[in-house]
């Protein structure tokens, strides 16, 4: 009796707590969709909701868009304020969880993604800390002073190893000793026992134009890296820049077993590929250099191990027998990605801990 009573009380499930989460699960701006003014899907991040508006839209005179939200069950949302300028509309919201214990700030941005200026140089001078101050994120400012959040990295995934105590501990970090000013420093890192537990024993440093879906980082790592954005102003001719590279000593496979005789190498490349602006499907880690949609690719084939800053200029070559079509470009039909990684096969968790790639002053020369 006593035994049975005890076991019963010990295994008793207490009443379900109210939801503690307060996420925006989906956001819909019907008016923009009806008028076909959106370029690509709405991007919902942990604290941001981004509506990329087509370049022909008149942001300055547009009525303020109404958003319909889907939230975590039981959560509510309040609009705090709106700011507008010639480049965008910014709505500030706070969400509150059902249990009343948590709230979260969101910014809904209605912005354009301007094409790159033809003389734009990616010099990695513009960076800030992410929303919880753990790691750096990089952005670009164009000749008109408009900010574009072009760059993504795997840092958000590395955060879950618990090893990033300062931004410099992350695989993708800034370094003051650039070719000119700051540069990007990519380091292949050990992810410790947590990374190993998830079958990801190393994390290569990477930086790319596109988006990193940290939610997918553990489950489908190849799909977490979404390469490319709709920002090519013309047909690209060359990818140029500066880099230096020191591979790590011990090359390991995805189970962290040493692979004798294999040496790590870095990757720097750019691809231009076909997209449908109303159904933007990015290339990801599984097909970024092999997809049939690639039109042009520029890649350093034998990067070697230059210990000093080394300049490179590599031509874009056509791929899949495709021809660049200016009419397609005018219809937002191409995306371009620039990618750098401290371990070429880092996406498959193969590489050498300690491999370090510095890159700076990247640019694309347009035809």
């Amino acid at each position, binding site marked *: 009796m006593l*035994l049975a009573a005890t076991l019963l009380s*010990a295994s008793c499930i207490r009443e379900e*707590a109210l939801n503690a989460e307060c996420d925006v699960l989906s956001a819909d701006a019907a008016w923009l969709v009806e008028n076909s003014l959106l370029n690509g899907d709405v991007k919902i991040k942990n604290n941001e909701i981004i509506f990329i508006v087509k370049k022909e839209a008149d942001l300055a005179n547009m009525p303020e868009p109404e958003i319909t939200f889907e939230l975590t069950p039981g959560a509510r949302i309040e609009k705090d304020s709106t700011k507008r300028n010639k480049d965008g509309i910014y709505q500030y919201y706070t969400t509150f969880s059902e249990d009343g214990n948590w709230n979260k700030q969101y910014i809904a941005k209605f912005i354009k993604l301007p094409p790159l200026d033809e003389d734009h140089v990616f010099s990695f001078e513009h960076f800030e800390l992410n929303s919880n101050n753990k790691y750096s994120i990089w952005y670009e400012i164009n000749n008109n002073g408009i900010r574009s959040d072009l760059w993504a990295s795997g840092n958000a995934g590395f955060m879950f190893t*618990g090893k990033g105590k300062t931004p410099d501990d992350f695989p993708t970090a800034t370094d003051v000793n650039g070719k000119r000013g700051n540069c990007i420093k990519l380091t292949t890192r050990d992810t410790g026992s947590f990374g190993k*537990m998830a079958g990801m024993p190393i994390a290569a440093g990477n930086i790319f134009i596109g988006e990193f879906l940290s939610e997918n980082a553990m489950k489908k790592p190849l799909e977490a890296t979404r390469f490319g954005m709709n920002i090519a102003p013309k047909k690209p001719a060359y990818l140029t820049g500066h880099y230096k590279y020191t591979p790590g000593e011990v090359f390991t496979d995805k189970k962290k077993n040493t692979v004798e005789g294999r040496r790590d190498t870095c990757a720097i490349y750019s691809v231009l590929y076909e997209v449908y602006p109303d159904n933007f499907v990015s290339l990801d880690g599984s097909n970024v250099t092999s997809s049939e949609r690639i039109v042009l690719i520029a890649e350093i084939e034998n990067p070697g191990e230059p210990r000093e800053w080394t300049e490179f200029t590599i031509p874009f070559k056509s791929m899949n027998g495709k021809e660049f079509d200016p009419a397609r470009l005018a219809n937002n039909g191409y995306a371009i990605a620039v990618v750098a990684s401290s371990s070429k096969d880092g996406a498959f968790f193969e590489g050498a801990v300690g491999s370090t790639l510095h890159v700076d002053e990247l640019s694309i020369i347009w035809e």
Partner: protein
Amino acid sequence: MKRTFIAFLIAIAAISVSAQTKKEVSDTDKNLISAALKGWHIRLSAGYNIGGTAPLPLPREIRGIESYNPGLNLAIEGTVEKKFGKGNWGLRWGVRLDTKGMTTKAETKNYHMEAWDTEGSGQIIGAFTGKVKTSVKNTYVTVPVLAVYNINKRWNVSAGAYASYLLDGEFTGSAYDGYIRDQNPTGEKAEVTRAEYDFSNDMRKFNWGLQAGGEYKAYKHLAVFANLQWAMNGIFPSDYGSVTFELYPIYGTLGFTYLF
């Protein structure tokens, strides 16, 4: 662990075999009878442990136990009982080899976790929503000390304390089919397919607790018993980072005792 257990079984078998030899039989019997006359009783018990190694109370973030498997946990015990005078009271103590284990699958929601990686250089603090499988199998050598009260010739009840030393411990599990959020329920989210853990080497060697039970003497030499062992300290050190709440082994034993 298995080896120790088998050795123990062999030792018991050997005792019973040696007890069969003619001359010794009479010697042993004489000794037992004279011991019994002085109020000493020797007992040998075997039982099955069923229970859980669980936090108390169960945190609210645990939404459901999907499955529970008690496993095969045996306890073998040799005890001596001394009766005091002609009254009903006595004292029982001895040595027990017992395994306390279970496997559970639980569903969690915003389960607060803090964990250090094995190198001690990385820490995750977060909220996990998903499934957690835990498997415990601990083998202890235990010394129980119990006060015994004989209600009548057939029934007795006992209560006291026990001290256990962990001979072999296994604490493994996995978190799967869920997601973790950095720091708290508003943090960045990452889906978790499967993360395995093994904290076997971090468990406390010493465990102690309270024990109470009853016994029914069905035949002259055979009694059946049930008791409950409720641990008073957790299986991990209180400052252990990977499991932030105390896990108490709480097990019941059902078995029989051979009374010499």
